[in-house]
């Protein structure tokens, strides 16, 4: 026992050093960003922050990002929730198929995915110009509301949503809930909406927050397809207004953190874990 306590005390200076180094490394860039965004030579100014709202493109790009996020969340949940619940009730063979399908996007990095998407979109004018499919391809590339981004984001969100829902469903006895609801005379949709979903509230919130964070910060796909949601806008203004781009980064960080911390609070003691690149 004496030995045990001895070895613990001996280890402590190393631990303090590691924690101090981590604190410096993780806090200094944040503090420096704030200093950078309010520093104008000899005095402190909050101009970079107060001018954000009036800057051209801010409202449009932020609204676009929020719209895309809401649509993505709705679509991914509409696709995933009925499928995941149904898999809990039966069809064990399909279960592994869905597990593989939902983790496939991890193998294709976003930049490779967008390379494939832009190739498919080019088929429109090249091969399909006489078919009704062409109209669809044009429609999803609408400048004001590029639905093609929603399609891409849903695919990119699949692995996270799958994990969140899978963890939530594991804690619930779906079969009993559904059977109870059914024998009380509920229809299938009623059983799903009024018996199963309320028990999945945590998992649904978890999935929604992760998707929201993903869409708000997404840069690769939207930039290469030529749209300007929030993250692309920050980069576009950085050349002319470096101070403001840092200020917006600080703000968007804070917003994302508040969201994720809220998620951690809602999800009880569990921290949001990202298990995939």
């Amino acid at each position, binding site marked *: 026992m004496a030995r045990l306590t001895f070895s613990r005390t001996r280890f402590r200076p190393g631990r303090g050093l590691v924690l101090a180094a981590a604190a410096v490394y993780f806090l200094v860039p944040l503090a420096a960003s704030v200093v950078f965004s309010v520093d104008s030579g000899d005095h402190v100014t909050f101009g970079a922050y107060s001018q954000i709202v009036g800057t051209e493109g801010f409202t449009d790009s932020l609204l676009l990002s929020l719209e895309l996020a809401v649509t993505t969340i709705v679509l991914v949940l509409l696709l995933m929730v009925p499928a995941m619940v149904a898999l809990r009730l*039966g069809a064990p063979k*399909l279960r592994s198929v869905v597990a593989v399908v939902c983790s496939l996007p991890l*193998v294709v990095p976003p*930049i490779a995915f967008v390379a494939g998407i832009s190739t498919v979109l080019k088929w429109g004018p090249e091969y399909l110009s006489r078919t009704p499919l062409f109209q669809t391809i044009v429609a999803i590339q609408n400048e004001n509301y590029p639905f093609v981004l929603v399609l891409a984001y*849903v695919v990119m969100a699949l692995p996270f949503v799958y994990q969140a829902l899978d963890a939530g469903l594991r804690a619930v006895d779906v079969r009993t809930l559904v059977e109870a609801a059914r024998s009380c005379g509920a229809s299938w949709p009623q059983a799903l909406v009024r018996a199963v979903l309320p028990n999945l509230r945590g998992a649904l919130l978890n999935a929604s927050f992760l998707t929201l964070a993903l869409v708000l910060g997404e840069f690769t796909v939207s930039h290469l397809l030529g749209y300007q949601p929030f993250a692309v806008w920050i980069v576009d203004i950085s050349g002319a207004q470096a101070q403001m781009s840092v200020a917006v*980064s600080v703000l*968007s960080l804070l917003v994302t953190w508040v969201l994720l911390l809220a998620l951690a609070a809602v999800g009880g003691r569990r*921290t949001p874990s990202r298990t995939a690149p």
Partner: protein
Amino acid sequence: MTTALPRVDVAPVASAKRRRRAPGWLAVVPLLAFTAITFGLPALAMLNGAFTVKDQATGATSYSGENLSSSLQGAYLTALLGSVKLSAVSAAIATLFGLLLAQAVVTSRFRFLREAVLTASGVLANFGGVPLAFAFVATLGNSGVLTGRLGLKDAGFDLYSFWGLTLVYLYFLVPLMVLTITPALEGLRAQWREAAQNNGATHGQYWRHVALPVLTPSLLGGFVLLFGSAFAAYATAAAMVGSTVPLVTLQIADALSGNVLVGQENVALALSLDMVVVAGLVMAVYLPLQRRSSRWLA
């Protein structure tokens, strides 16, 4: 008597299951159809394009491995190797530092410190992309807050370089490692340490012969995960360095937007295919390792 009872129960459940099979299939079909179109189609297009060569003069197309072989030559090969090197180096440093940090936190007596570091890791692991790049540009960039005050430029430090980018990548890789390795460290039983000490093992011997062998699958799995994460990253590098550091993601972006030469789109697809192969290898290594570590630390 007791065996007869369950049988009576089982029969109606089985028939009810049969009735339910139709909705089970129906609910999964939209998901599979959706992914087949939105994911399968681009993936096939990439595969097809990577092997298609278009004759600039006649416009005729034919299948060949030309794109793939040119994606493994010259500037493209440099970029691919640059990406692999950057990912490997930053993942290795992050694995080491993440292990130290997680160990410091797990053995800490202060519960709030533990919770705070784990929550912060969950947040920071998701903090990649554009804001991260600008935070570091503001700190250590050419006109950064610390660059001038510490005279880093005269000391030869350059953020827009290989090591600068490594420093930035660590910002989301270390938290990711902390999240990955913490369950494994918590799975190390106190009895193992005590048993080793009762047998006269020193601190170092305990780590070398007991803890590290048990942790190895988790550490390797974490390293591979970090490698994949760094390898796929584009936004941070694009917002920060432009193209001063050769990276495969930057090359693909350049070729896609026609910045380099006309007709390089298919080489971009071949490069994408190279990336998918590397990412696929990463997952092929990661999944068995993860299964192995979860067996030990159950």
